[in-house]
């Protein structure tokens, strides 16, 4: 039924806006990424496409309606990479296209020829030799989990750099590398490009070794293959010659990172990378814009109710004599347009006593 008694809001005093950043911790463990929902390379939560350009990872077998898309994996390299044009270059065009697509969207173009910029493992994008990342693994995180953006300084990626059989701690002394963007924050440690802010993923314990990039607004990780080719900080045992992929016991099936990038299809390379992801974690950010309505209830009004139970034989139940204090109990606040349309409803978790001895300000926040 309609309400006919309203209190007008003064938009200059009773309405204000605010912005809140909400963060959620998102841990993506390697068990979801590989091996939980079936045998490796045929898991039900891994979706491959006939175009073969990337692979999707779900948190549950993707044929189920309750499955959520978590992220995609792709690999690519620039056409100036040493991998380009080598023999045994499976899907080379697609791999170059993938690299270019990410770079043109995230970094943009440069020069009079509008060449797509190349990813660099620093914050300058000045094409300095030694920092250009010509081969990359791209992990594109779903908006479902990144929400508005990844929180700067919260990213941690742990990759297995050991043997194929024991990627996270093999007895050759290789273990795992944890990459973090700990140097990034809202006040520094990032650079801004066409694709938004990006930060550097340093190897944990090695402040000078950058192993990848994180694009915060786009929710994309661009990981360098150096995680699997360069030695860990302080380690005497390098990853040179790492058996990056070895699907069976046949020694001839052993492949290095470069061999996987050139000799495997993108889908196969993604399988291998999934096998070597132990953990990805970050905090996402949801930007909540709110309008706050201060519903001021004066002391001398709204102390009576039109609730049918309020009266018994026309007598107000909460009073015995006319000098008793009238009282009502608020449970609901309705917010209306100027034409009396109910636009929003707010409910109190418990009734709020209203009598002439108190004046209330009910703060109703609507989030958008």
């Amino acid at each position, binding site marked *: *039924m309609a309400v006919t008694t*309203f209190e007008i809001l003064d938009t200059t005093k009773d309405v204000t806006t605010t912005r809140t950043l909400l963060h959620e911790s998102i841990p993506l463990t390697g068990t979801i990424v590989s091996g939980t929902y079936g045998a490796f390379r045929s898991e039900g939560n891994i979706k491959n496409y006939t175009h073969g350009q990337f692979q999707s990872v779900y948190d549950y077998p993707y044929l189920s309606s309750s499955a959520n898309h978590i992220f995609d994996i792709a690999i690519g390299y620039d056409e100036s990479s040493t991998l380009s044009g080598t023999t045994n270059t499976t899907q080379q065009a697609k791999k170059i296209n993938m690299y270019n697509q990410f770079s043109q969207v995230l970094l943009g173009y440069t020069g009079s020829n509008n060449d797509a910029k190349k990813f660099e493992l620093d914050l300058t994008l000045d094409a300095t030799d030694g920092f250009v990342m010509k081969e990359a693994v791209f992990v594109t995180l779903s908006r479902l989990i990144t929400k508005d953006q990844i929180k700067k300084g919260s990213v941690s990626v742990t990759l297995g750099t050991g043997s194929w059989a024991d990627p996270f701690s093999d007895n050759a002394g290789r273990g795992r590398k944890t990459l973090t963007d700990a140097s990034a924050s809202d006040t520094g440690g990032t650079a801004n490009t066409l694709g938004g802010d990006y930060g550097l993923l340093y190897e944990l314990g090695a402040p000078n070794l950058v192993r990848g990039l994180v694009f915060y607004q786009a929710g994309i990780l661009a990981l360098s293959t150096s995680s699997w080719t360069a030695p860990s900080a302080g380690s005497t045992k390098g990853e040179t010659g790492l058996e990056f992929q070895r699907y069976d016991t046949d020694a001839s099936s052993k492949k290095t990172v470069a061999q996987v990038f050139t000799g495997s299809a993108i889908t196969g390379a993604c399988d291998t990378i999934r096998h070597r992801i132990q953990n990805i974690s970050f905090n996402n950010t949801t930007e909540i814009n709110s309008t706050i309505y201060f519903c001021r209830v004066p002391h001398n009004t709204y102390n009576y109710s039109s609730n049918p*139970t309020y009266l018994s034989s026309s007598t107000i139940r909460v009073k015995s004599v006319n000098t008793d204090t009238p009282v009502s109990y608020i449970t*609901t606040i309705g917010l209306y347009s100027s034409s009396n349309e109910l*636009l*929003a409803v707010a409910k109190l978790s418990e009734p709020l006593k209203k009598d002439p001895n108190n004046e209330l300000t009910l703060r109703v926040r609507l989030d958008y």
Partner: protein
Amino acid sequence: MAFLDNSGDIILDAVLTEAGRRKMAQGNFEIDRFALGDDEIDYSLYNKNHASGSAYYDLELLQTPVFEAFTQINAGINYGLLPFENTDLLYLPVAKVNELAGTTSLLSNIARQGPLFYVIDTSGDTGALNRISKKLNDNSPVVQFLEGTTDGLNFILIEAGLDTGTDQTPNGTKADRDNYLVANNLIDTSFSVYYDNRFFGTVRGPARASAFTNAGASDGFQGNIYLKRSKPISNAGLGIENYSAASISAISNEIYWNSSETDQDFSVINGPRSVVTAVALTVKTGLSAEYSLYGRTSQTLFNATVDYIDTTVYVVGNRSQAQVQLPIRIIKLS
């Protein structure tokens, strides 16, 4: 729709209604006012005799669980809090349907509920009106119906006032009317009628020339109700989908207690009376598929085969907020 967690701090759970989301999509979402409600509260649980004293009177009320907010506009606030500033009020008006039969020409036009108010759909066919009205008149007891036309004579009579009871204070004298109603500005000047616009076209209410008194000979009834078309209320936030509103006049209810106690012959309010109003509904012409969509068809009633639609009409006083809900059955011969 669950209850809100009331084990800790008081929280507010707010949602946009369907209308709010539609306005948001249209780009004209603008909140301008607010209202307060207490629909969950059962004030009969207020225990003025609690052994532990006045601090415990409202113990049960304060423990009332509150539902989550929901998005349907018709479930927002059904009964709002009232802004009366006078803290001395002990009585508030109620509205009641007057179904008293009488011998005067006025009272013979009062529609009576049994248990519904019947409104005849003739779709402009006078013959049909005659045929079905005969069935209703032949029924035992006679069903006093509304004609459903723009010129029908019958109406539903609604009275408002303080229904305090026989031999109670205040009583139905003019002095108590002045002291308890007029002095406290509790006399309604109009009523809002909320009706389903899929079934009803117009509403008629009393013209200003109408009167309702027992100032006739031997304290007998004196007065008449003249019906006129009501004014639509254009910006009413009705709270119910498909409902429209119209404003009808309130006529001073001057039935007073007197030594011959004729007041109870004409009035259902037992105490100071404030106003009276009348509602006559006009059925939309051409209702056909509506009977199978929203009602029932080929039913046997009053020894006839009929189609009918049940609906509710709400009548609310503009000052007192006293309201009455009228269960209506629109009926036609199949």
